[in-house]
């Protein structure tokens, strides 16, 4: 690229001289620019100070951090005055891994780390190549082996003992891994010139998007046995997984369709002129551009899914939120649910916040 050099820079407006202490100047422009603004700042500071102070009092100063095993008497003594963080060391193994056999819990822990590594690698632009798909397949197979076991001397653990964070990550990741190709197919179907395929895609997308996920999950848990030949049944977790895949497919299809619409017509025509078939045209020319256009909304959809997996609580699958809710059924610790919810909220927050930062950075670079 040759730079255009002979156009002079526009004359820069001379800045007013900066006087006084920079910190004071910052305060003046950002907090006390006018009298109402100054009053607002003071009021906000007062409210903030009060909230922070009472939280510090409750959450740090008067909090109980550790108690002897299964003894909540110290916590009960400060109930209402101080937080009982001691419930976290007491229950964290159950909250994170559910009823997975205690001695084998390094396996779900390792799976969680694998998931995090997989997500991290997927955000590296240098790795956006065909090998990434192989990496995903490899990692998901490895995680299945770790969770189920039964080979390489690992004891078999059936999936009704799975629980906690790995289940949340499995539901979200597999939902995405299968929902994404489904979404691409449905988005293509919705833009197809073939009327039967188009109307089928529209019907599917509108039906799924028109009803709450809760009712779809109910359908999976209650109606599935009705749909299948008698004697045939599949595990509840798998059924919820299928619903999440179908749900993800419909929402992702709409996002991808937006991307397809943003690809200029000339690209389609150029691909046709090269004599490419329908599938090669989309695989080589259209989809790479379409998906690049919609990466930020795709990440936002992923965040929404990650949060929506928590709805499986309603049909009794042991994801992270359900294990948290179950952990506080224990009568000794029943009163300290707020602490447990804050702990779990922090876990969800870390995952979603990381994704939303990533989406923000993609938006800033324009997906390139």
């Amino acid at each position, binding site marked *: 690229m040759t730079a255009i050099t002979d156009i002079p820079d526009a004359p820069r407006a001379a800045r007013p001289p900066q006087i006084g202490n920079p910190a004071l100047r910052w305060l003046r422009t*950002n*907090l006390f*620019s006018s009298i109402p*603004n100054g009053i*607002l*700042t003071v009021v*906000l*500071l007062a409210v*903030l100070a009060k909230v922070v102070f009472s939280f510090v009092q409750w959450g740090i100063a008067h909090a109980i951090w550790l108690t002897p095993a299964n003894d909540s008497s110290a916590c009960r003594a400060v109930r209402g005055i101080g937080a009982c963080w001691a419930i976290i060391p007491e229950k964290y193994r159950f909250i994170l891994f559910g009823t997975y056999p205690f001695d084998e819990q390094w396996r779900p822990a390792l799976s969680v780390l694998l998931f995090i590594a997989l997500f991290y690698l997927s955000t590296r632009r240098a790795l956006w190549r065909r090998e990434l798909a192989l990496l995903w397949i490899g990692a998901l197979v490895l995680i299945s082996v770790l969770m189920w076991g039964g080979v390489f001397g690992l004891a078999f653990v059936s999936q009704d003992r799975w629980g906690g964070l790995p289940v949340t990550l499995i539901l979200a990741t597999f939902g995405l891994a299968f929902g994404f190709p489904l979404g691409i197919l449905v988005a293509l*179907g919705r833009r197809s*010139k*073939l*009327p*039967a*395929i188009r109307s*089928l895609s529209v019907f599917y997308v509108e*039906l799924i998007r*028109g*009803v*709450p*996920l*809760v*009712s779809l999950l*109910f*359908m999976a848990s*209650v*109606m599935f*046995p*009705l*749909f*299948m*030949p*008698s004697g045939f049944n599949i595990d509840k977790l798998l059924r919820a997984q299928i619903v999440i895949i179908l749900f993800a497919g419909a929402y992702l299809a709409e996002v991808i369709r937006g991307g397809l619409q943003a690809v200029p017509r000339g690209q389609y025509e150029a691909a046709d002129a090269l004599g490419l078939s329908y599938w090669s045209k989309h695989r080589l020319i259209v989809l790479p551009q379409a998906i690049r256009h919609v990466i930020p909304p795709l990440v936002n959809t992923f*965040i929404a899914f990650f*949060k*929506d997996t*928590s*709805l499986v*609580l*309603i049909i009794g699958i042991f994801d992270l*939120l359900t294990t948290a*809710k179950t952990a506080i059924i224990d009568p000794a610790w029943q*009163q300290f*649910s*707020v602490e447990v*919810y804050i702990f*779990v*909220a922090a876990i*969800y*927050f870390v995952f*979603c*916040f990381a994704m*939303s930062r990533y989406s923000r950075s993609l938006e800033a670079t324009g997906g390139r």
Partner: protein
Amino acid sequence: MTTDTPRPPPRRRLFGAWGRRELQGLFWQVLVVGIALAVIAFLWSNTVTNLSARRITTGFAFLGREAGMPIADSLLVYSPRDTYLWAFAVGVANTLRVAVIGIVLATILGTLIGISRLSANWLLSRLAAVYVETLRDIPLLLQLLFWYVLMQALPAARAAWRPVEGVFLSNRGLILPAIPVAAPQLWVLGAAALGGVLFYVIRRGLIAQQMRDGRPRPAWPLAVGLILALPALMSVLFGVTWKIEWPELRGFNFVGGLTLAPEYFALLIALVTYTSAFIAEIVRSGIQSVPRGQWDAANALGLRRGLMLRQIILPQALRVIVPPMTSQYLNLTKNSSLAVAIGYQDVVSVANTTLNQTGQAIEAIALIMAVFLTISLGISFFMNWYNARIALVER
């Protein structure tokens, strides 16, 4: 283009006018539709066999039977002796009650926070950003359970908190003073609404006149006359009284006033705060989408800030805001079905109980779908109408 290469002879078509492309298209359509039909037929035949094995008759006849399920908190009069149909109606009313009020409150709160994020005050805009980031990144169901636990941890009715005189917050929910509304009061309210419509029509006429001759005609005396004075006069003439009913603690519970049950209150707070975070982002990006030149031009005209926002900035921002807002409203309505987790009986919860009691799974799910599709279509229809009204009129 050179003309010396002879054109290839037209390709021989196998079936008259049908070319290869059309045949391929036909093949794919037949294949996909065939697979879809086969799957549906397979599921259908299984379902029919299973239902007859369980002696469940399909159809909506069960709606006429006695429901026998208790619904604690309802807008309509209901007893467990009523029919399933009425129970569904109560569920729909409960869904609408939380969705409509939630949408209004979430819009107000979200707009305030979205504007706060753009404030020149650094502290206010940071606080708004923290609010948005925190609420958006935690699952709604978790927030709902959290609010519900907080509700249950409130003091008992006897030791209820009184933030303002007449308002009680306890583990029985939020109790507010209320004005009982019966038939006479409804007539007066109807008159006020009619006055509002009349005012709107007359104001349009006034604006049209102002457009013609440029003389401003203030409309506010008319507004006071039609919306306030007319109903007030009616109340005096017909002796309609407006009495505030203050809640009172008698024994272990409250008498009088308006009670928002803890389940309803928790659901409302969770839906409003969660959705307001998304609405705040929409409002912020909408306002930011208005080009800087528009602000400068409005300033150059010497408009006051309020007038500038109302006449110049907001009409342009709304074009960007309204379409994504529609999907947030739909989300809020669909999310209200999380009520089932804390035992607020919305339509999904009623359908779920029905399903467990009668085994009429397909009908119950069909009813849920029908209700939500109707609500979704209603919201989309209204928002599309509004969007068309505010859309940019181009050549």
